[in-house]
């Protein structure tokens, strides 16, 4: 958990709660995005990510809790310093690219000249220079995504709130997006983005927050989160078949002549089991915490199990 000193520095959510009728969409979410850092907001569909992000930009009225930016509630002035990219992309189809980006720059409070200059800058940076005068509806889906991003970035926001920025991007575009996010954070912006594509997230985030059913299930450094898992994965590729060798206790995922994969409880030592192997039998051995995707899956599954337990009780 962060201290009060940290929360003064960036975005901070405390006990954010939002109810839609009988459904508790967001249930006491705490979340911190310090300046200059990238936080991944992960969770399955319907976990409450979008509602939480909307509450940051003031679009969802909270039933409880508070959102602060640099220690202050997010007012109109602070909101202008946010770059927001909603999950449902939307642009004025019959407006020229450059005019559209300028328009949003002006809405965020830039002067006429500054808006024009920043619009040109981002259009160029995102490789849209030759389409600047085209109508948005004439652009390909991928280019429209870029315009959407330019709209979110035109006023060089201090806080970026990106809802599923990687959705629908091809690998090259995803790389561009990753670099862009990293670049903004390096320039001092606080970045919060949601995703359910964990492979994209792991190398990018300084921290992740995992939510399910509106509640935070886990939060922290990706390495810490993985290390906190109660299991370790032992993965051995065999050079020759390990006759007479049996894997250490755990969940055996694969065990054959070429490879053995076992999920071993963290407290079980594996060194002894490996020590009994003759030299040259194993081609490679790895013993690691499970990947973020599996940590994630475990959290979600345990939730499902808990839910079904409750149902049967």
């Amino acid at each position, binding site marked *: 958990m962060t201290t009060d000193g940290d929360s003064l520095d960036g975005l901070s959510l405390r006990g954010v709660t939002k109810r839609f009728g009988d459904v508790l969409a967001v249930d006491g979410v705490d979340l911190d995005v310090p300046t200059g850092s990238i936080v991944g907001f992960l969770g399955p569909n319907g976990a409450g990510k979008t509602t939480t992000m909307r509450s940051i930009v003031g*679009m969802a009225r909270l039933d409880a809790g508070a959102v602060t930016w640099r220690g202050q509630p997010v007012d109109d002035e602070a909101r202008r310093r946010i770059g927001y990219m909603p999950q449902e992309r939307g642009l*004025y189809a019959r407006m020229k690219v450059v005019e559209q980006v300028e328009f949003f720059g002006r809405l965020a409070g830039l002067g006429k000249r500054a808006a024009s200059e920043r619009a040109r800058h981002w259009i160029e940076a995102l490789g849209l220079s030759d389409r600047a005068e085209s109508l948005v509806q004439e652009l390909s889906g991928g280019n429209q995504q870029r315009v959407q991003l330019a709209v979110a970035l035109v006023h060089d926001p201090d806080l970026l709130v990106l809802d599923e920025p990687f959705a629908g991007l091809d690998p090259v575009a995803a790389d561009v997006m990753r670099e862009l996010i990293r670049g903004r954070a390096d320039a001092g912006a606080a970045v919060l983005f949601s995703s359910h594509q964990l492979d994209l997230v792991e190398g990018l985030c300084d921290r992740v927050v995992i939510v399910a059913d509106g509640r935070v299930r886990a939060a922290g450094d990706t390495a810490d989160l993985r290390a906190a898992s109660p299991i370790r994965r032992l993965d051995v590729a065999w050079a020759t078949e390990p006759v007479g060798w049996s894997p250490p206790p755990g969940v055996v995922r694969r065990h054959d002549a070429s490879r053995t994969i076992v999920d071993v409880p963290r407290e079980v030592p594996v060194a002894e089991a490996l020590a009994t192997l003759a030299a040259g039998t194993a081609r490679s051995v790895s013993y690691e915490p499970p990947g973020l995707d599996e940590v994630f899956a475990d959290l979600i599954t345990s939730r499902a199990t808990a839910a079904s337990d409750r149902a049967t009780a």
Partner: protein
Amino acid sequence: MIWLLARREIVTRGRTKGYRIVTLVLFLAVIVLGVVPSLIGGDDDAREVDVGVAEVPAVLTDALDAGSEDFDVTIVDVSEEEVESSLTRGEVDVVVTDGSLVWEGSPDTELDEFLRLTVERIALGERAAAFGLDADDVTALFTPIDLEEVRLDGDDDTDGIRFLAGFIAGILTFMFLQTWGSFVMMGVVEEKSSRIVEILLAQVRPRTLLAGKVLGLGILALAQMLVVGVAGAISLVFVRDVDVPSGVWATVPLLIVTFLLAFAFYATWFAAVGSMVSRQEDAQGVALPVVAPLLVAYLIGSASLTTPANGAMTIGSVIPFTSPVLLPMRVALTDVPAWQVALSLVILATSAVLMLRVAGWIYRFALLRTGARIRWRELWRARSTPSETA
């Protein structure tokens, strides 16, 4: 901020071909409507007609040949056998025989009247002569009596022009409120269905967003209406050479103010119902309760064109739902006490502000809810939770 949003509406819509073409067409249509009747009607010049005469006294032929202010008559002698053929061949417009007027189809009422009067005059002259009166007596007898029209209110004879002005004021306001109100509604639905509203609301309060759209489209609507008005004035004053009383011109600023307030009221309402649906197809249904009072107002106005002082008109010109149409009509048609005009405008302005507040709130609630149309019941249930920013 509002101006920024309004400007976007003006620039993007004003630039479309649709807006420019429609405005141009309206302008030309009004000019043409003004010009064409004077071309074919020949209000000022005498009409040339060919009148066939068959076996009628020479004195009648002479009288017909003399024509009148309205008719320049050419006499064509036809025999009794030729009556039908001369008409069907189109050599004559009508044939006067001893005791009948023969037409090919339905009579031309004006010409018919002229012929009847002439025939009657000659016949009466002949009868008078039979009674022993001489020609001078006959002339004296038939000298027209010039009756002067006197009005206690001292107005000129301007009923015709006021009637026309009232009719135009009514239909124009009705049409423009309905059309441009729908444009506002469609714009809202478009922003909602394209999801752009989510980025907008991240920066702008719902009420501001709404006010910007209404202001922008309101300016375009007013511009178009002024174009129509100018066209109307041109065709009235320069082409038809109508003497428009100064009182009519004095109502123009009033009409503009009324229209702007009326637009603020109705367009905001249109926007609010528009925010409740996610697809253009659903928009017509929710627009009905908005269009209905406008239509009622228009019907009341049309029915009151000749009796503008009636109660429905008086009350309707104060109620904000109907005053947008009825106030301009009433002002054009009759003399309205200044305090009533002021009262009506104040009520309309207040209602517009209230409507903006309510609509801003509905907007906030409805804009991010996509999918099924939002019911009034849901809005009513949600009303108790006040919002901190709307």
